[in-house]
């Protein structure tokens, strides 16, 4: 049996609102993310990349097209807990300890107490948070909170991770360290990732493919393969890295067409 693709989007579009005031957020999206593949969605603000992620997560229904996650309809995949998700804000529950937060998705699905605890501690260990299991979220820095959120997303051992600008609120140094950790974790868990960002270096460093989107209505303008062999800190200073960044930047600008504002205020 072949492993189904992590995500398959065919002709996906989403309209918000009705009639004259309707806004076409995304349209005509065809995209396949293979099992274990790391794909970034990049584009200017308002290009619908977060909308697209939410459609995959079954938080919103597409207006047209079909969405398959692990070969199942998106709603089935959500009910089966086939994906883990992390947002820009960690969204930890303040009244639970770090460990309690990681256990949350496990507890919701009837995993026994001992197993919950063991699994949570393993994940915290993986994220380098073993010493903070009994801390409260408010005692942690932003970067550490985000790591807890990622540990929580991994709790159900999903084959797919959905991440919506998870490092967007972090400072540059923390951000680069988190990127390296994410690469390591993906290698260890073998999860596919759909990663929304508006940082070009971040997309290039993390992804096997970068999906470039255009705004209003959001559509895929180009999919760029990232030809990087290893993803270590040296890569950040190597020529292929910069070449790909330039490539993505030009794709965002629309290759020869009038330059499009690359980055609006978030």
């Amino acid at each position, binding site marked *: 049996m072949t492993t189904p693709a992590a995500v398959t989007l065919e002709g996906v579009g989403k309209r918000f609102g009705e009639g004259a005031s309707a806004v076409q957020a995304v349209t005509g999206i065809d995209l396949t993310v293979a099992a274990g593949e790391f794909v970034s969605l990049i584009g200017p603000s308002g290009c619908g990349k977060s909308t697209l992620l939410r459609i995959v*997560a079954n*938080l919103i229904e597409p207006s047209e097209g079909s969405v398959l996650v692990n070969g199942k309809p998106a709603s089935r995949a*959500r*009910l089966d*807990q086939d*994906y883990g*998700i992390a*947002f820009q*804000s*960690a*969204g*930890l*529950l*303040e*009244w639970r300890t770090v460990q309690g937060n990681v256990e*949350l*998705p496990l*507890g*919701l*699905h009837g995993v026994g107490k001992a197993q919950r605890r063991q699994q949570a501690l393993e994940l915290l260990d993986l994220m380098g948070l073993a010493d903070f299991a009994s801390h*409260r*979220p*408010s005692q942690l820095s*932003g970067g550490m*909170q985000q790591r807890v959120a990622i540990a929580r997303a991994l709790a159900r051992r999903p084959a797919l991770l959905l991440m919506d600008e998870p490092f967007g*609120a972090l400072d540059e140094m923390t951000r680069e360290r988190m990127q390296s950790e994410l690469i390591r974790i993906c290698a260890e868990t073998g999860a596919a990732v759909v990663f929304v960002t508006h940082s070009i270096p971040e997309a290039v460093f993390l992804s096997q493919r970068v999906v470039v989107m255009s705004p209003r209505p959001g559509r895929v303008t180009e999919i760029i393969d990232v030809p990087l062999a290893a993803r270590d800190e040296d890569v950040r200073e190597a020529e292929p890295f910069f070449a790909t960044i330039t490539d993505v930047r030009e794709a965002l600008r629309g290759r020869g067409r009038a330059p499009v504002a690359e980055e609006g205020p978030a």
Partner: protein
Amino acid sequence: MLLLAVVLLAALWELYKLVIPADGVRVGDALILPRSDDTSMPHLSEIFGAFGEQEVAGASGTVLSSVISAVWYSLRLAAAGFAVGVVVGFLLALAMQRLRTVERALLPYVVLSQTVPLIALAPLVYGWSGNLTLFGLDWKPWMSVSAISAYLAFFPVAIGALRGLSSPPPVQTELLRCYAASWWQTLVRLRLPASVPYLIPALKLAAAAAVVGAIVAEISIGLPGGIGRLIITYAQQATGDPSRVYAPIVGAAVMGLVAVGLVSLLDFGLRRYHTPKEAM
């Protein structure tokens, strides 16, 4: 802190008596500051001394014992009202949180309910419920008092719980949706714990309101046995014994403090949920 405030208040009271003339301060014919004679403002020693007096000359019971028994009686009525009010208020909040349309339909009436003067309502409730039988139980006059107490208590709970239940940010509600959590799981794991910081102040307000409601309803309905009736009785004896008027008022104040104090105990038990909001 509380003790200090009480001492300060007592000092102010006595200072007022000392400084302000017995007839009060007048500008022309207008009384600017109230009278401070011993009929209007008895010395604190007399007020508290009154607790030790015989209720009726020759009888065995003191004023203190009748105030205590009246407080106990009223407190139980208020507690019943509080319990009903909390349940009703919370269920209303749940319904309003669950369905936006219910909120739009109900919230104006919830607010409107509190603009009706309680004094006008109490005899109505008493009148309506005259021959009422609920689940095989005959409606008793004390139930009218509790009903009015509940009527006051449900309001802060409904408003506070609604705010609290709606307080989790979208990132948390969406997270629970991603986990395919049911409405009930979302309520228990997320909305209820998140509502505690909003619920505790609401419960304190409700406790105080339940006490006020019970006392006012007792007076309005004319139910004997409680602190409300005692306030009226002693007020009628004011010409003979002015210090006695204050005894049931002190009793009512203590009653309110006890009610709010009990809620504070709950607050202490739930302090885990009172942690500061996460920075992000």
